[in-house]
């Protein structure tokens, strides 16, 4: 009896006043993050920043009010995934007239650097002090933006805070996939071979070794599905054409078709080497998601709801998620008995899961506003330029 009362209590919406109070620090944070742009002459940028700050604050308020995470985070993520290509493609096309990066730009060190090649660069850098990427280490003119050091810095800082949560609160590529997966009402393909979960580790291992042997960012050159919506090496020969064909095929298959059929983030679950690498940091993060076995029936709704197949019946029986859990909160929202809970390592699973959720969300949402918010604002600004 006491148990069910507890369940009902945690599912009740918070009062508006209390929710506003809890949202206040995040509202201040949003203003702080975007205020440097408020005084600028660029009206489109100012409007984009205000809209983004308001959007992120409203979503956080809804998380506080409804005590639900995934539903609102997904809005942020889908918008991030939608607006990232808008801003990025506009930037590269404005700079060089095409999404294709010519060899001149690579030699000049102006290749934009995203976080995905980071694990591939570690071994060559450790062994030879060489970065096998045609970018620039420091801020440089052109599409490389603030350089490899800046991306490495922001990745490390965010990873320390949210660990594998990067994939749920920062990865703009994941946003595309999650947006697509949200479109169908029900999955058409329900049975997925669990062995596919090892895919990202296999890709990571293969790409790390290949990058070391070939001394090039092998994943970027051959397998990255997101080249289809960002930038790709200008095809100078048949090999280049094949590479670009692979990018389009993988993007269509893993980011569009399979998420539509399965309602899962299939690229993240079966393919992404960066996701596999980031899973290692789940072991260092203080926050995780647990299954309270005293409440669990088990109905396996959490397993069905997980977008990255990070729950199995075996792991549920153990009260844990798999290492690939990206802390999106889908299982926590889906559990009808509040058995799936946010948790702080070292504490009792059943004890104050909402406190753990709040602490995690303050940290993760702060990173989402800072990193994802700037990407959203950039995409919005691009669109607003048409009107303002």
């Amino acid at each position, binding site marked *: 009896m006491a148990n069910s009362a507890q369940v009902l209590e945690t599912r009740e919406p918070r009062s508006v006043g209390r929710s506003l109070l809890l949202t206040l620090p995040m509202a201040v944070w949003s203003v702080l*993050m975007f205020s440097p742009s408020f005084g600028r002459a660029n009206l489109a940028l100012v409007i984009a920043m205000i809209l983004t700050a308001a959007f992120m604050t409203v979503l956080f308020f809804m998380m506080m009010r409804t005590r639900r995470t995934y539903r609102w985070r997904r809005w942020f993520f889908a918008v991030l995934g939608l607006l990232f290509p808008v801003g990025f493609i506009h930037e590269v096309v404005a700079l060089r007239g095409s999404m294709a990066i010519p*060899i*001149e730009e*690579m*030699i*000049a*060190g102006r290749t934009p650097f995203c976080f995905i090649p980071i694990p591939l660069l570690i071994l*060559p*850098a450790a062994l*030879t*002090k*060489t*970065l*096998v*990427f*045609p*970018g*620039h*280490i*420091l801020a440089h003119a052109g599409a490389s933006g603030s350089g*490899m*050091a*800046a991306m*490495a*810095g*922001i990745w*490390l*800082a*965010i990873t*320390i*805070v949210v660990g594998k949560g990067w994939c749920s609160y920062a990865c703009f590529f994941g946003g595309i996939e999650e947006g697509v997966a949200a479109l169908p009402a029900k999955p058409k393909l329900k049975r997925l071979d669990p062995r596919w979960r090892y895919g990202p580790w296999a890709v990571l291992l293969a790409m790390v070794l290949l990058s*070391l*042997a*070939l*001394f*090039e960012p092998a994943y970027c050159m051959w397998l990255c599905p997101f080249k289809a919506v960002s930038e790709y090496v200008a095809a*100078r*020969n048949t090999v280049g054409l094949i590479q670009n064909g692979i990018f389009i095929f993988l993007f269509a298959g893993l980011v569009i078709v399979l998420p539509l059929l399965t309602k899962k983030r299939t690229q993240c679950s079966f393919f992404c080497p960066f996701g596999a690498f980031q899973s290692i940091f789940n072991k260092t*993060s*203080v*926050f995780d998601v647990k299954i309270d076995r005293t409440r669990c029936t088990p109905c396996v709704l959490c397993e069905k709801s997980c977008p990255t197949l990070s729950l199995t019946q075996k792991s549920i029986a153990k009260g844990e998620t798999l290492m690939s859990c990206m802390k999106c909160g889908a299982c926590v929202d889906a559990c009808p008995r509040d058995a799936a809970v946010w948790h*702080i*390592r*070292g*504490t*009792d699973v059943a*004890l104050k899961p909402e406190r*753990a959720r709040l*602490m*995690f969300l*303050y*940290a*993760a949402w*702060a*990173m989402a506003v*800072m990193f994802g918010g700037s990407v959203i604002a950039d995409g919005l600004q691009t669109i607003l330029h048409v009107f303002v």
Partner: protein
Amino acid sequence: MKALAARLGYTAAGATVFAAVLVPFFLYGTFTKGFSSLGLHVDEVYSGGPTIRTIQAAGYTIDIHRQVSPHMLQSERPFVQLDWKPVSALPPHVSDVVDIDGDGRPDVLVTFDVPKDAKAVLHVNVEPLNPRYEAMRNVAKPRFSELIVRVDDAVLVRVPVASRR
């Protein structure tokens, strides 16, 4: 023991939230600076390697870079990069004999046209005067180790070095 573990857990969680606040103001900059101070450099197959000598020509200069040798299974060949700059000072047709290794004897004869259109594809001919270097006939930019491109205010030519037998 349980109470201690819980206390440590909450302390770590609190420290994580604090770290999140520090990210834009301190951590991000510190990590960025830390990364750039590691002494890493971009692979010379992309960057062309450091300049070791500059030759003064009529109104322009030719920078000679250190020879770049590919690593392990890298699909490129060894090459030497030569930079003609500034582009504005180059004649419409460049034909220069270059002493790459600095031994006082000419190594290659490099000829190319400089079109006014900065986006036009360049083509280069390289006549080796030293068997150490390989010939290039009407080459544009097929690979990193064999090309002519315009980068900012310079025309870059990469001359492949013959493999030792």
